[in-house]
C-alpha cells in the first residue's frame, strides 16, 4: 500500500504535495487528518502546520500481492505472485516461476517466513488481522492434504477407541489447519498443549 504522512500549511497543500510524491490521483486515495494545524499571525508567524496521512485505496489481496512481488524482485528471483482468492480476513496467493525451490526453502521455511512477513504488513496496513496464505508449485496444498489425511485417520482412531491421541509437535499454522479440518468431525474435539517448539495438538473423544 502506498502511503505517506505529510505536513503542510493547509490540508489542501499537504494533500497536493503528498499525491505528487506518491504519484496517485485524488480518487485513488483516502485521506486522514492527523493534526489540523493553526493559522499564524498574518498567516505567517507562530502558526502550526497541519499533518495528514494519505493512503492508497487498494484491496487486501492486491496489496498482499504487490508486497510479495516487491520482495521476490528484491531477492532477484524469477517468479510472479498471483491472487488465488480473497475473503474477509484471508488472502491466498500463489507463486509461479523458475526459482520455486528457493521460494519454498527447506521444509517450507522460506514460504512460512514470506507468509508471516506479508501477513504482518497487510494486517498493519488494514488495522485488522488478515491471514495471508502463500503457495508455490503446489507445495502447501500437498502439505495441507497430507496433514488433513493424517488428522482424519487419527480422529477415526480416537472416535472408535475413546482414547485421546497426541500428534507430533507442529507449527502454529499446521495446527490451525488440523483444528479447522477436525472442527466438523463427529465424536472428537481438538486442543493444543505444550510450549514453543514442543507444542502439539491433542485429539480427544467428545463427551
Amino acid at each position, binding site marked *: 500500500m502506498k502511503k505517506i504522512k505529510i505536513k503542510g500549511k493547509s490540508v489542501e497543500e499537504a494533500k497536493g504535495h503528498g499525491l505528487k510524491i506518491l504519484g496517485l490521483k485524488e480518487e485513488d486515495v483516502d485521506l486522514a487528518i492527523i493534526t489540523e494545524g493553526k493559522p499564524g499571525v498574518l498567516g505567517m508567524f507562530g502558526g502550526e502546520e497541519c499533518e495528514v496521512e494519505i493512503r492508497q485505496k487498494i484491496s487486501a489481496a492486491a496489496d498482499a500481492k504487490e508486497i510479495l512481488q516487491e520482495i521476490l524482485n528484491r531477492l532477484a528471483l524469477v517468479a510472479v505472485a498471483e491472487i488465488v482468492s480473497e475473503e474477509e480476513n484471508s488472502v491466498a496467493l500463489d507463486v509461479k516461476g523458475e526459482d520455486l525451490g*528457493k521460494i519454498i526453502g527447506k521444509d517450507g521455511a522460506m514460504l512460512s517466513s*514470506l507468509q508471516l*512477513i506479508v501477513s504482518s504488513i497487510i494486517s498493519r496496513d488494514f488495522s485488522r488481522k488478515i491471514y495471508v496464505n502463500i503457495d508455490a508449485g503446489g507445495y502447501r496444498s500437498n502439505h495441507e492434504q497430507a496433514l488433513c489425511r493424517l488428522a482424519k485417520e487419527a480422529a477415526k482412531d480416537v472416535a472408535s477407541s475413546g482414547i485421546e491421541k497426541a500428534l507430533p509437535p507442529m507449527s502454529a499454522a499446521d495446527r490451525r489447519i488440523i483444528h479447522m479440518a477436525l472442527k466438523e468431525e463427529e465424536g472428537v474435539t481438538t486442543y493444543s498443549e505444550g510450549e514453543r517448539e514442543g507444542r502439539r495438538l491433542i485429539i480427544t473423544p467428545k463427551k
Partner: protein
Amino acid sequence: MKDLIEFIVKALVENPDKISVTETQGETVSIIEVRVAETDMGKVIGKEGKIANAIRTIAKAAGGKEQKRVNVEFMAKEAV
C-alpha cells in the same frame, strides 16, 4: 540485500522515517544492523522473535547466491 531488508522493515513499522539499515561486509559473513524507533521494536521482533527470524530466513535466501553467512541484528534507535 540492504534494499530488501529496508523494504520489509519499512513496511512493518509505524515510523518508517525513523529506521536505518547498515550492512557491513566481511569475508565470509555479512552483518546487517537494523535500527528502528523504540516503540517499533515489537513490530520487527514479533511474538517469541518470530518476525525477526522470518526476516533472517529471507535474508539468508538473499545471501545464498554469494555463499555468505548473513547476520541480521535488531536494535532500538537511541533518541536523538
